[in-house]
């Protein structure tokens, strides 16, 4: 892994080197920040904080056409994959979520749509120097400078960005930007390490999940599920904004004779998600749905892929309209075990 320095003054030139690829970066202000295409010729300023909607949409769009066809026809046409895309300023938690979701989409057989995009997307991460109030990545296997899932990681050192290539794609980016970069000396490496350590120290919240994956299903009938879900509105905010939530629905949509089969994000917090056609619902209330959401992230997924399906980004806590707080739920779970 090579480590380089980029003087921030040369940031626009660095971005300029990426022409020919689609560029996405967090845009907008504060709470409303979201990943959006960068206007050609512009270099996005990377700010603190994280986007409301995670960048998972770059590899798993909210709505994706799987194939098109004519009603009554027998030919299906799969849309061509899009061009190469570089995501700038991805937070380590969000990149890590993709590495986690890779497990599921690659389980026994590859999901072609997901992996096609995954190949086309380069993730340029930005280490967090100012973690958010509800960040708890350090307690679920991540960290403010975790490189898992990233191709390249940048750390803000004031005047410079400290650049570390993680994958070949990242190395290629560094090579392309070659003349803009300078070797990072040991002092800069130390400065970066110190910065990251400081940042990790600013993370206040944490979950203690020791023993949770094994014990969680055993709390099946615990009253805690009723109490933590009593106020749940049953909306999709927590799941849609979760970078590791990957559930989808498949629907055929028809306009005249033009039709397509597409998939779109779905949420386990919706009653319809598990509703049988007969009217029977194996998860009839928000209690069962909440229980499933937590079990899925902290037990079932661990069972199958040996990793917790939660990266501690805090979005579900920040944006839940009724303050359902996964850290608090895990605290109660731990207490009940």
């Amino acid at each position, binding site marked *: 892994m090579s480590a380089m320095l980029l003087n921030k003054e040369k940031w626009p030139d660095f971005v300029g080197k990426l022409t020919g690829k689609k560029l996405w970066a967090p845009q907008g202000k*504060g*709470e*409303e920040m979201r990943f959006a295409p960068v206007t050609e010729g512009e270099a996005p300023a990377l700010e603190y904080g994280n986007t*409301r*909607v995670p960048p998972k949409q770059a590899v798993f769009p*909210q*709505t994706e056409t799987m194939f098109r066809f004519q009603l009554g026809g027998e030919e299906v046409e799969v849309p061509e994959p899009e061009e190469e895309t570089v995501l700038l300023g991805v937070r380590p938690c969000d990149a890590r979520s993709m590495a986690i979701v890779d497990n599921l989409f690659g389980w026994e057989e590859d999901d072609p749509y997901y992996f096609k995009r995954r190949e086309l997307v380069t993730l340029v991460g930005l280490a967090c120097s100012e973690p958010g*109030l*509800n960040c708890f990545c350090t307690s679920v296997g991540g960290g403010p400078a975790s490189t898992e899932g990233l191709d390249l990681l940048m750390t803000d050192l004031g005047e410079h960005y400290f650049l570390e290539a993680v994958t070949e794609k990242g190395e290629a980016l560094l090579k392309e930007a070659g003349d803009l970069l300078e070797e990072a000396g040991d002092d800069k490496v130390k400065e970066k390490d110190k910065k990251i350590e400081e940042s990790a120290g600013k993370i*206040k*919240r944490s979950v203690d999940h020791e023993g949770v994956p094994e014990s969680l299903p055993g709390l099946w009938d615990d009253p805690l599920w009723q*109490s933590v879900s*009593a*106020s749940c*509105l*049953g*909306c*999709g*905010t927590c799941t*849609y*904004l979760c970078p590791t939530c990957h559930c989808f*629905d498949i*629907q055929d*949509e028809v306009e005249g004779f033009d039709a397509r089969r*597409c998939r*779109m*994000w779905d*949420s386990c917090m*919706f*009653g*319809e998600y598990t509703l049988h056609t007969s009217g029977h619902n194996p998860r*009839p*209330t*928000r209690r069962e749905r909440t229980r499933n959401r937590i079990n899925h992230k902290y037990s079932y997924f661990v069972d199958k892929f040996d990793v917790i399906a939660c990266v501690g980004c805090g979005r579900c*806590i920040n*944006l839940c*309209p*009724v*303050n*359902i*707080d996964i*850290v*608090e739920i895990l605290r109660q779970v731990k207490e009940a075990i």
Partner: protein
Amino acid sequence: MDLDKLRETAAEVAGRDDVKYLIGWKKGSYGYRIAPAFVEDVEAAAELIFSPLCTANLATYLTLVEKLPLPRGQEPDDRKVALMVKGCDSRAVAQLLAEKGIHRDEVIVIGCPCPGMVDPDLLAEKYPETEEPAELKWSDDGFVIVRDGEETAVPRDELLAEKCRLCRYPNPVVSDIMLDDPVETWEPAEDEGVTEIEEKEVDGRWAYWQEQFSNCIRCYSCRNVCPLCYCQDCILDRLNPTWVNRSVNFSENTAFNIARAFHLAGRCIECGECERVCPANIPLGKLNRKLAREIRDKYGFEPGLEPEGEPFQASYKPDDPEDFIL
């Protein structure tokens, strides 16, 4: 408001044999957060609060209950639900009663006269949230933020929520128990947000909403939080036939948002919850208030004021003006 009185009253109500639970507000898990509280026993009433952070309209829980088929031989639990309401929340209750979405004997309404809530986004922007719980109080001319034992006075206009600036009914319009004397009402502000959109040309309005609806992620938090969106079988969920496609794009998002707005015309009580919970920050309040304004101007009707009244659009009088038909 006297919190001791609130908790005492709540404990008394929650302790009654004919009460299933009482729904009120309690401190959330951190910072400024507030969480709905479902108080089933007397002790839990001690957690209840009423502060300028209690924006949530809890009336939605009256109709959000998921009823399961009863096991054989089990009697239905028809005990009452007690609900704490602000002025706007009480209008939701009144509207539900008028529509017979709930029945008067199913609910005990505990009224909290409301001097106005803070806008949680404004608050967090100006006085950044910390992990430690913070409290807010009302003062004579504004709000007081209490954090780490320190008090910061903030003028009312700096933080008052938009829905409260526009509010005409800060005192509950329906209640069984009132926790305080009515607050003095204030001159509602001009609804500039709506006027601004009205003044745009059609193209401009279209462009405005196009941008907004394109951001919608269809999480349905607006629908679910809305005390008056309580259809058992929502057209958005129907697949057979599919009225609104599941695809998330401008066209379908618009169909959804417009359908919801129209279904709320003459029913929306302007509690602003849809806008508060929207993770995409869509100014849904403007949309619903525009329709409320139309109905007020054209029909002189305001929903959620008369629990016994006839719901607009669900009643007919022979002398109804019908010039719009021709």
